[in-house]
């Protein structure tokens, strides 16, 4: 069953430098209980896509220009703002990148957790408090009852991110959007947090959208992947398929730049050049200046969105060729 369907979403930012098309025609579907990964370099529009879904794009300068975000049959973009507020936190919850700044430093942890359920589930103070303590236990805060009265600065980064997760899940949302939930944490804590999200997802059956630029995280956590570049979807496939048979030169480049601990020590591959300035995109393929198999047509014409298999799409003039190469190369 489809939980969320995004159709041709376009979010533009009006800047001094011109119109920035941060998200430019994104479409995808998310099934109930599924995990979707969105990967891409910084500035590729991952976060803006998700802020658009719950209508939190800073306006001005941002504006959702067109598109539909159909959540459980309703177009969120057309709802009155009161109705959207009832969805936020209740049905769609978010975890943010930096746990150090996403908790209010002047509010006790318990208060921040209680706010959620008092707001959305109509809990009384006592109910909300019990629920908050239970949630803290669920996310693995030791001695939760004693800790609930602490302020955020008394918690370490990993614990704060646990609190954020507890907050996000306390109303049992149907969709959890995790915007780079582990970027600000060190590696051991990263693994714990990801394990926790995975475990809670299995227990509650929540759908998850996981935004990250870490391909390792995507491989371990997600069912589907979207690769974004310059506000566009470059490739979209089942996770296994994408890792085995990438159908886009950009994805291939990304996969090559993942360090391989088993390989001989050598120079780490990196895609040449820098992500493009989204305010001044060239007429052709936005990846053309950095692509290793660029041809004349790439600079001239915008590439088509090619269907490789019913479940696998790629934005490239040579998608079929790239896909064929990967399938051959990886067959043996």
């Amino acid at each position, binding site marked *: 069953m489809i939980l969320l369907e995004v159709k041709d979403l376009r979010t533009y930012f009006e800047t001094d430098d011109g119109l920035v098309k941060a998200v430019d025609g994104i479409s995808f579907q998310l099934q109930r209980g599924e995990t979707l990964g969105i990967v891409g370099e910084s500035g590729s529009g991952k976060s803006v896509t998700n802020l658009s879904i*719950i209508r*939190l794009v800073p306006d*001005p300068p941002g504006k959702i220009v067109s598109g539909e975000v159909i959540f459980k049959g309703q177009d969120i973009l057309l709802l009155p703002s009161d109705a959207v*507020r*009832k*969805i*936020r*936190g*209740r049905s769609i*919850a*978010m975890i*943010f*990148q*930096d746990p150090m*700044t*996403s*908790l*209010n*430093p*002047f*509010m006790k942890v318990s208060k921040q957790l209680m*706010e*959620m359920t008092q*707001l*959305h589930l109509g809990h009384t103070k006592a109910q909300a408090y019990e629920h908050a303590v239970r949630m803290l*236990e669920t996310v*693995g*805060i*030791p*001695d*939760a*009852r*004693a*800790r609930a009265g*602490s*302020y*955020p*600065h*008394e918690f*370490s980064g*990993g*614990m704060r991110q*646990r609190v*954020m997760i507890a*907050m*996000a899940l306390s109303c049992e949302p149907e969709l959890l959007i995790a915007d780079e939930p582990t970027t600000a944490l060190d590696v051991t*804590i990263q693994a*714990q947090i990801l*394990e*926790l999200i995975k*475990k809670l997802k299995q227990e509650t059956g929540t759908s998850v959208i996981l935004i990250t630029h870490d391909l390792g995280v995507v491989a371990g956590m997600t069912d589907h992947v979207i690769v974004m570049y310059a506000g566009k979807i470059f490739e979209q496939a089942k996770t296994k398929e994408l890792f085995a048979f990438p159908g886009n030169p950009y994805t291939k480049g990304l996969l090559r730049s993942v360090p391989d601990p088993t390989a001989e020590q050598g120079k780490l591959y990196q895609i040449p050049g820098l992500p493009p300035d989204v305010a001044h995109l060239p007429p052709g393929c936005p990846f053309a200046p950095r692509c290793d198999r660029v041809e004349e047509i790439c600079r001239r014409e915008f590439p088509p969105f090619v269907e490789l298999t019913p479940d696998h799409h790629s934005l490239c003039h040579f998608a079929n060729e790239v896909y064929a190469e990967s399938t051959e190369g990886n067959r043996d």
Partner: protein
Amino acid sequence: MEPENKISPEMAVAEADVRPEEAGEFVRGTSLWRDAWRRLLKNKLAVFGLIVVVLVTAASIAGPTVIKRSFGFTPDYIPTNDVKLIRSFPPFTGPDGEFSWKHPMGTDNAGRDQLARVLQGGQISLFVGIIATLVSLFIGISYGAIAGYVGGRIDDVMMRIVDVLYSLPYVILVIVLLSMFRSQTPRGQLTLLFVALGSVSWLTMARIVRGQVLSLKNQEFVLAARATGVSAPRIIFRHLVPNTLGPVIVYATLTIPQIMLTEAFLSFLGLGVQAPLASWGSLAADGVQNIAIFPWQLIFPGVTMALTLFSLNFLGDGLRDALDPQMRTI
């Protein structure tokens, strides 16, 4: 909670997450306010200020009653029967020039006890300072926080109004207000004084709060609150305003002496507190007329006021240092 023999692997990992000094037994962390309080206590001038302010306040509140109990006269008591008493005595002096504990600050022209007058004046001066500051807190915080959070055109309009009010010379504004609505009773006059002082004192507070909110509203916790469906008024007053409290408290403690000074100034000019009520300003105004003959009539209210204002300023400075965001570690 579960007994300890049921520790799951997740719990084990989570325990490693706790900083070493907190492991084992749960330690109560120090709160922001307790840290600030400790820093304040280290500042000698601020502690001195705090003590003086507390003493003056307590004396002002309790003093007139105590004097009435022990000597039997009120601050407004004018000895009418005995002509010999209706004149100004120096400190610690009785009607015949002998030493007396009855009037440690002497008496004024009408024979009223100066100490009782000063304490009564202190009541009103402090009351005016505190009430007008509360008014400025209330209006200034709401106004500034809304302007800062909403932003855009509404912010522009709201802050231009503040600018316009700023550019009016407020003393003249207050004088006009007070003389336009000149009240017949001393109480009415006092109420007018509150309105006049309160209506101009919130401007700086509004600016301070707006600036704080502007810098806070782009922080992630506000976005996180919005993403959990919290409404705008709740974000402003539950999430943002508490975060501005540090600078607000500091400014409020510095506003109190400022307003008391303005009140004294207005009363000195005869626009503020009217007899039989007294404030330090009106007492000083009375005293200054007889400065050559009866200097104690000016010295005692003047020194008390100066000492209190000094102390309030020391306290405000101390609080600013104690609550300085650069010094606290979040």
